[in-house]
């Protein structure tokens, strides 16, 4: 078996193969002009709608403007939701088109495939966040006390969380119909409980406990910290760490549920 020693056994997480996969996913995105346009424009447009909703409502005394609080939080929610949807459908397409089965026979490892997806949509999310943050602070007068680059960073980590959960959810979906319905299941409870609708302290105790283990809670808290303090706080970095950890955990679970052998 001399040939076996000459062939390069692929490392579990080859940077080369991960990059190739990221490039491929971005190329697919690039051919889909409408999706690119929607990715870039929709969050800004929806944020504009929120801005208009509150434009005539006076702020509660002693409280920040409602739009400053909610609009900023939405900068973390949008990329999470959008990337969850895009990746769960994208991965399902890999599955149904037979390309996933084919990839599993190549040297590309499952973690490298998933990480390649995460990096591609993380990059897309970075561009999306740059556009949305720029529009928000210029056109909608969004007030952020801390550095805007941190807002973009948190948005990207949120997007990667969305990607990771989307990849995981796609393992449990057999059709596009099912995949789309995972979105409200995964996203809405996190949105309801993250403290945006009702401050977390006012939630019933057990719901507060549920809220404590949902990653979006930490994403929204991190954004609130950036919004309120000029310097990055320890709480904020802790929150970002929790969201990133949750994303890694979901990616690991997604890799574990991705079966090489199927019936």
């Amino acid at each position: 078996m001399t040939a076996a020693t000459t062939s390069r056994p692929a490392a579990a997480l080859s940077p080369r193969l991960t990059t190739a996969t990221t490039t491929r996913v971005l190329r697919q995105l690039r051919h889909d002009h409408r999706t690119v346009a929607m990715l870039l424009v929709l969050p800004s447009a929806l944020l504009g709608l929120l801005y208009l909703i509150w434009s005539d409502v006076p702020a509660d005394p002693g409280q920040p403007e409602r739009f400053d609080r909610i609009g900023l939080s939405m900068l973390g929610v949008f990329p999470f939701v959008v990337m969850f949807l895009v990746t769960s459908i994208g991965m399902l397409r890999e599955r149904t088109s037979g390309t996933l089965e084919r990839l599993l026979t190549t040297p590309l490892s499952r973690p490298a495939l998933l990480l390649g997806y995460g990096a591609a949509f993380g990059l897309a999310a970075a561009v999306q966040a740059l556009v949305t943050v720029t529009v928000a602070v210029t056109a909608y007068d969004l007030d952020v006390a801390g550095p805007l680059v941190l807002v973009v960073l948190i948005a990207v980590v949120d997007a990667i969380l969305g990607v990771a959960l989307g990849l995981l959810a796609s393992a449990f979906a057999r059709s596009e119909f099912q995949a789309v319905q995972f979105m409200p299941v995964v996203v809405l409870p996190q949105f309801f409980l993250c403290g945006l609708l009702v401050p977390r302290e006012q939630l019933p105790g057990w719901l507060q406990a549920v809220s404590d283990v949902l990653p979006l809670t930490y994403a929204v808290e991190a954004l609130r910290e950036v919004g309120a303090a000029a310097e990055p706080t320890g709480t904020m970095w802790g929150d970002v760490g929790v969201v990133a950890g949750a994303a890694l955990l979901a990616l690991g679970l997604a890799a574990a549920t991705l079966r090489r052998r199927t019936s």
Partner: protein
Amino acid sequence: MDAAVTVTDLVVHRGDHPVLRQVSCQVPPGQVTGLLGPSGSGKSTLLRAVVGVQQVRSGSVTVLGRAAGSAALRSRVGYVTQAPSVYTDLTVRENARYFAALYGRGAAAADAAIADVGLSEAAGQLVEDLSGGQRGRASLACALVGEPDLLVLDEPTVGLDPVLRVELWSRFHALAAAGKTLVVSSHVMDEAARCDRLLLLREGRLLSDSTPAELRARTGTQDLEEAFLSLVRAAAGQQVTA
């Protein structure tokens, strides 16, 4: 010489339904082995077991001296599924370059593989804009690009015009002459004559494992389709008498 693929007592079920029933066979290296049988006979399932993506109930599949699907094999085995499995929202060239990268090859190898399947002119086109036959060839190019030692092709010539089919078969034989092993499934009997060796599968059982010449001699007919039918009749007769 050691067999490139050794299948031993392979049993595969889909649900409660047996798809492969105790199949044993060997694929010699450096040859084109045809896997023939009617649709539903288990051809695709056997090929999936060889590339290591099929759940098997019992039995074993050894490929190039290792268990099928093991990590070390993945750079040495190329697989083309029956339905073209390429990214329809990428161009032919982008597809070939991606798979080239996965096998550690460069852009030149991708272009060569595209030329090998006669798609150079369409290299810049999106796969979704191609005809069915062209898509199949794009899919084939993405396996050729890795220059695998074992090439597993599930009905690669479906929907191709006769000229192209002949070209592809001569390409397969050139690869075999260069020492590569090919397993090609087909339900078209006129392709059987082009194979060095034939495995005939029917209802999950192996009916015959021989060269085309041996098959003709054994059944006393020059026509391989006729030979296959006489094997089927003999097998059915055995089932009745048993």
